[in-house]
């Protein structure tokens, strides 16, 4: 019974992690049709920002939740102005340019921080469920993921800025005619997406050892989650994260982490074969 509870917590945690690591990519892809392959490196930058900030004596929550998103958001801003801006509407080119960018960021991080694994400790103690100890920080991630989804929904559905942004993504010319600069909307959206990537990096920093190539671990999973979700940002993200989180965690527990990961990948292939437009291409159409 305790084991079942622990397993359920692990499943929720694994869904939450997928949501957190995919949110930034989902916003940028869902809103702008830009696939940012430097997403993993944005996360890595968020992780380093957090660690540097903590080592500089800043409170760990401030570092994770504020410093990391801000720093990475600003990096995203620079990247958008220098590179992505020139490539809007050219999906593959943005993909390739951001891939190059990811290599540049790995290189820079290696030159600055070296390849030695670094990290910080989670700020929350573990506690017991029955006879089992679980990682308290896992609950924190689950809560943050839930809040993140609610906040994204509120922002996109309930605020003027969200409406303008969605309008611009649908019909940039119309938005421009109404007096909203698409250029600025894209810029702000990319900033937000990058900040989310930074947040993810910050949140995961206490859990995993950080090296400049850490991003590679996440990009494929985030990419698969977002694409499988389909066009709707929030529903798509949540539905595919739930599916993959469940599948990978169940298989991990029943067999081993490799089987879990392979199960996730196989699930993705099957899913895309059956639903070529992603989950929300078939279900929940037209939702956010």
């Amino acid at each position, binding site marked *: 019974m305790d084991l079942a509870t622990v397993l359920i917590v692990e499943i929720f945690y694994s869904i939450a992690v997928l949501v957190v690591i995919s949110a930034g990519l989902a916003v940028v892809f869902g809103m702008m049709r830009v696939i940012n392959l430097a997403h993993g490196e944005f996360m890595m930058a968020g992780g380093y920002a957090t660690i540097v900030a903590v080592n500089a004596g800043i409170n760990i929550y401030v570092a994770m939740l504020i410093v990391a998103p801000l720093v990475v958001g600003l990096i995203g801003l620079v990247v958008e102005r220098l590179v992505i801006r020139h490539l809007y509407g050219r999906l593959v080119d943005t993909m390739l340019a951001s891939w*190059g960018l990811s290599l540049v960021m790995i290189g*820079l991080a290696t030159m600055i921080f070296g390849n030695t694994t670094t990290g910080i400790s989670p700020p929350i103690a573990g506690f017991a469920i029955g006879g089992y100890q679980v990682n308290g920080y896992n609950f924190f991630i689950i809560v943050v993921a839930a809040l993140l989804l609610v906040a994204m929904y509120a922002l996109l559905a309930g605020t003027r800025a969200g409406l303008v942004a969605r309008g611009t993504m649908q019909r940039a010319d119309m938005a421009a005619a109404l007096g909203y600069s698409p250029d600025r909307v894209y810029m702000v959206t990319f900033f937000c997406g990058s900040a989310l990537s930074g947040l993810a990096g910050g949140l995961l920093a206490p859990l995993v050892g950080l090296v400049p190539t850490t991003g590679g671990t996440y990009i494929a999973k985030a990419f698969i989650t977002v694409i499988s979700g389909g066009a709707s940002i929030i529903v798509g993200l949540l539905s595919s994260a739930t599916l993959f989180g469940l599948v990978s965690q169940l298989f991990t527990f029943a067999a081993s982490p490799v089987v879990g990961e*392979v199960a996730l990948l196989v699930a*993705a292939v099957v899913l895309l074969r059956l639903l070529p437009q992603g989950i929300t291409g078939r279900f929940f159409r037209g939702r956010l």
Partner: protein
Amino acid sequence: MSGRPDIGATLAVLVVFTLLALVAPAVLETYTLTILLIYGLLAMSLGLVWGFGGILCFGQAAFYGLGAYSYAIAAINLGESTLPFVLGIVVPFLFAGVLGAMMFYGRLSDVYLGVITLVVTLIFFKFMNSTAGPEYAIGQARLGGFNGIPGYQTLNVPGDPDAYIFGDDFYYLVVAIVLVVYALLRWLLASPFGRVAVAIRENEARVELMGYDARLRKTALFAVGGAVAGLAGTLFANWAEIVTPGLFSLGQSAEIIIWCIVGGLGTLVGPFVGAMLLGYLKFALGQQALIDNTLVLGLVLVLSVLLLPRGVVPTLGQWAGLARRRRPRRAPRRRLRPARGGADG
């Protein structure tokens, strides 16, 4: 239709390449040249599928690795290299065919195609990495997990397992293979099949309306690309004398794509040259410690996407006025077709 201007250009390329290949050993060691040629062949396989078929495959490394592993496993079991060599081409060819059929008959749009190829590569990578245990063996060949498979029979004169083809001989063999593959691919592209494949890249719906089955043709082209990548993998296995799961890595896939972009899509020579240049750059960077190599590769990629949207070779060709002589083909596209369906609703 009239494949004739192409014949001239193809012959010119073949002659120039042969001359360069004969002169090159005076400048560089043949083992370096050999691997550069293998990279070139690998780049050409993606150049074919992507540049002419419009199919962006994030997983060309899967076929490369599959070719190398097929060869290594078969060579350990058979102890003679002829059949393994053939298997190193046929296995990836069949696999690419099946995978392609699954994707193209499923009418997956391009982004999803990218994801599937990426995911399949990842599956190979993860699987091969987790085969260190003794239970993973095919015949006498242990898969070896992360460490890969060393110590298999390398290329020999067919029928004589003790007559190894290595060193300079292997280099000239690879040169010959590159020549043959290039000529065959040129012939394929000049054939009706190739013309239709290019037309599919330009406008798949129109080609379907003409009565051509685009799915079948894309699958076939994809399979041919897989076979060429598999051949490159087989040659790599012979050059390196060890195969590791790194062949399936995303980094490897990324490199192939970068070669194609830098070299230029829409030609076969472009990706080939791109691969040789960047491959050499990588070796050169390995001999210095000043700048991080990843950084340099990344910069090359970003800058070439921004500044050389057509790649080095087509851009040079344009400067040299070569473009005028040939059919003025539009900039080979990297854009994606809009996703089918959906919009009607």
